[in-house]
């Protein structure tokens, strides 16, 4: 994450000039406010443009950070260390940003239940405000990607663009319909069905576990919104052809035709040739 910072600071000027046309002055103001509130002082200069869009400005306060610190000490410090600087059991969380916390805790992946190839999704352990508190605490330790602005989460972008980006950047692991797929040695890319827009966005932004990071310079915030639009389109519009058999492709189709198709027809042949009473 250290190189993340350096990389983004040097890339900042170019990005800003490219985007200035699209962004309202308010966003720039809020950017500065966010920077000041979350990290204070000099850190604001390093605020990555990759994480510029955020809605945490209004919700972060010192008391929240304090509550988050307590929760962290009680639930996370065993692995991540009292100062969140990591131990042999868990990585340092300094600079991972609030988006990572919201994703990992908000989807129930953290706290980790058991050692395995990768952290599994489980029932969420904390209330939303507790998660936000921990996110605020982690964000106060070092700058990192923060939670996305709600305007990117409305699923009202360009689904066609999103679908194309999804096929290029995501489908090889998550399958073209977002049904998930296998990785090496027991790891897997989870199904994206029913995952909230915010968590999808945060996953792209932070690259949880073995997922690569897709920062805002690789896939721009609006492009991320397009991807979310596409995934939500698939959820809202079930296949016109009927039941989807898990969207797993030819394997489930083959199993279906052998078991149910041919099975039904063999049953018919038995009836057909049985002696009538």
């Amino acid at each position, binding site marked *: 994450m250290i190189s993340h910072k350096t990389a983004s600071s040097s890339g900042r000027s170019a990005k800003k000039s490219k985007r200035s046309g699209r962004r309202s002055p308010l966003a720039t103001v809020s950017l500065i406010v966010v920077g000041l509130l979350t990290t204070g002082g000099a850190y604001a200069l390093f605020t990555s443009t990759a994480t510029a869009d955020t809605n945490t400005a209004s919700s972060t306060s010192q008391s929240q950070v304090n509550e988050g610190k307590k929760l962290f000490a009680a639930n996370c410090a065993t692995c991540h260390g009292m100062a969140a600087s990591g131990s042999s059991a868990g990585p340092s969380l300094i600079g991972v940003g609030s988006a990572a916390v919201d994703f990992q805790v908000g989807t129930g992946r953290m706290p980790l239940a058991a050692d395995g190839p990768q952290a599994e999704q489980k029932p969420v352990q904390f209330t939303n405000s507790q998660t936000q508190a921990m996110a605020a605490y982690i964000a106060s330790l070092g700058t990192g990607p923060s939670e996305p602005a709600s305007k990117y989460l409305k699923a009202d972008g360009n689904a066609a663009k999103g679908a194309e980006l999804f096929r290029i950047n995501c489908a090889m692991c998550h399958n073209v319909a977002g049904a998930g797929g*296998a990785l090496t040695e027991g790891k897997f890319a989870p199904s994206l069905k029913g995952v909230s827009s915010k968590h999808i966005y945060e996953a792209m932004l932070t690259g949880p576990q073995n997922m690569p990071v897709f920062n805002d310079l690789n896939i721009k915030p609006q492009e991320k919104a397009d991807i979310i639009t596409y995934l939500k389109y698939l959820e809202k519009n079930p296949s016109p052809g009927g*039941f989807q058999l898990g969207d797993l492709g030819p394997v489930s*189709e083959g199993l279906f035709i052998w078991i149910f198709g041919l099975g039904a027809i063999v049953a018919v042949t038995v009836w057909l040739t049985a002696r009538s009473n």
Partner: protein
Amino acid sequence: MGAAANYIDERTSISGLVKEVGRKIFPDHWSFMLGEVALYSFVVILLSGTFLTFFFQPSMAEVTYQGSYVPLKGIDMSAAMQSTLNISFDIRGGLLFRQIHHWAALLFIAAIGLHMLRIYFTGAFRKPRELNWFIGFVLFILALAEGFTGYSLPDDLLSGNGLRIIDGMVKGIPVIGVWISYLLFGGEFPGTAIVSRLYSLHIMLLPALLIAMLGAHLLLLVINKHTQWAGPGKTNDNVVGVPVMPVFAAKAGGFFFIVFGVIVLIASLFTINPIWNYGPYDPSPVSAGTQPDWYIGFADGALRLAPPHWEVVWGGYTVSFNILVPIVVLVGLLGTVAFYPFIEGWITGDKREHHILDRPRNAPTRTAVGAALMTLYAALWGAASSDLMATHFKLSIDQVIHVMQFLTVIGPFIAFWITKRVCLGLQKKDREIALHGHESGRIVRLPGGEYIEVHTPLTEYERWTLVSFNEYEPLMVRPNERGVVTPLERIRASISGFFFEDRISPVTKAEIEASHHESHGAIEEGSGGH
């Protein structure tokens, strides 16, 4: 005789054909209907496919999609993909017919597979039907080719990656591979020719061959007459069943509508090959779980199972054993299937005609060989879904592959051994039943304090089914007229030994009589005690 019938007969002499075929007898058994399922699915494929050709454009010309499916609007794709999307989204019933066509194709090949298994395990391929088995095998290969060419036509991401794999395999063929790929694709992969070329094959050449072979297959079926199961009244010289007119015609005709109806029912309820999810072919993206349709799975699985680094450079030339070895395994498997009847006929030297089917247990080695080949096929087939097994059973994909590699190599031997033991066990049980009757579950106590179970004797009809089967003994090598034992004869003798060394003979009349005396006495004693 109606005027119409008269009109036709005066111009075709069809009355002879009706007389000949009209009352032909077909034995009635569910397992004899499987080939019909394949035939009927094929008819459905022809009907639905013709409808699709009215709308499909076999062209790779680049167009920008402006159709009604929102998540593809404005995307560049081939005319083939666009027209397939239009069939799916803009033509009423178009999606239904696409799904009918594809589901029927899956059912077609599945039915062929099951039909072949039935023929194999009952020995229906024996003289005089060896040639028809081979024709059937050719039909199976043609069906696979039809399936693969059709699967590739929409030019979507999934089928494009399938072609990519074919291209990679072809390139791995020594000496000529690159050139074959070049000619096939009309230049570099993917080119702009492959869809229209596959289309020609898919709708003209392959169906023509298929129909010709199908004609030969059915003609031989009529000439050879159908086989039948052993049973009372059934001999090698007769065929017992229902006549074509009217009973079989009504059943088979009705069955066509049922098969058609089941396919349409599936097509109206279940999505197949949602190409709109896959998007147009592009060499850079790929989907997790990229698999071929089920019938090509065994070939894809074979490719997955090669261990790393099976490639050598000899004298500057690259030899890809990671592709050649799977190809050799596949060709070996299919070749064994294609020529099995000739191999078995050579081993037994039996030149008689066989019209009575073997129960699988009564040919233990054949059944076991079949089980071994099925296990090999199943392991290769399973390997093609190794990634889905890993995600769905929470396993490591590496472990799944290792298990499949083990099953591919060792599995057939295990299956052979188990199946043979099971067959011999069942044969022993049959012998017991033939000799002593069914276990009645009634226990009686003998005067000596001994308990025995009373057996109900078999009826004549039941016994006939159990005792009437073929038995072969291992071949003894003998010198020929010139007094020499040829090496070929030695090979034949050793395979014959492998086939027939362990065997259970059918019960003989003498044995039945002997056992009757014995058990009769025992029961009498038993009942005397009460």
